[in-house]
């Protein structure tokens, strides 16, 4: 699947908010060959951010060694119902995507 939709869940845990986010991304290493034997060019997410109510809380740099269709779980201190969580990514080809959800 080419880069596509994201899906996020944010739930209140004990003293923290659990954020789980799924991303549709091939995370190509540049070393895999396609059916015709041609190398598939590198294509992977490089930067990932998590914001709570507009404030940056996690700032990540990742490599092509993160698995295809990445899934991340983060924990945020405290949190309350209705807090807005936003996750965004940018990849090495300049594509980007983001998704937003309110804590349930």
């Amino acid at each position, binding site marked *: 699947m080419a880069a596509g939709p994201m899906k996020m869940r944010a739930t209140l845990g004990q003293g*923290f908010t659990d954020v789980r986010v799924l991303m549709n991304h091939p995370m190509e*290493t540049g*070393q895999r060959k396609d059916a015709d034997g041609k190398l598939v060019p590198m294509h992977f997410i*490089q*930067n990932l*951010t*998590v914001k*709570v109510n507009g*404030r*940056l*809380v*996690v*700032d*990540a*740099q*990742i*490599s*092509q*060694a*993160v*698995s*295809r269709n*990445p*899934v*991340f*779980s*983060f*924990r*945020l*201190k405290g949190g309350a119902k209705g807090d807005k969580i936003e996750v*965004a990514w*940018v990849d*090495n080809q*300049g*594509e*980007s*995507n*983001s998704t937003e959800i309110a804590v349930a």
Partner: protein
Amino acid sequence: MNRIRRALVAALAIGLVRPLAALAAWNKEAFGAKTAADALKNLGVPNAAPSGDLHIEAPQIAENGAVVPIEISSNIPGTTALIVVIEKNPFPLTARFDFKEGALPFVKVNVKMGETSDVRVIGEAGGKHFSASKEIKVTIGGCGG
């Protein structure tokens, strides 16, 4: 949606917008390093002291190197970053997570491993570095056909 994305890509390309303004740049030198030592040098991590307060939750055996789940966390007070290095991968540096006020030093992520290797986690707290590591064996699953 696609049109919007294309427009956004175009805008990014000519430097009109920076949607992730707070973003740390992607550390090309560190991620391009072929050894763990070089990667850490490029990240400005000279030497890290072993610590029992860094935790790596992972299976000892992974059936499939393409998806190895790891859960990393730190009990060291004031932890501001966690770095993941897979020693035997062609490019060992896998991720660097910077935690700002409001986030706990905790991440769960699936990574790729080319072969059985030590997975090292470096924690950063108050300008000091700590490290922990765990060996994960990569095996073959299924009929192999």
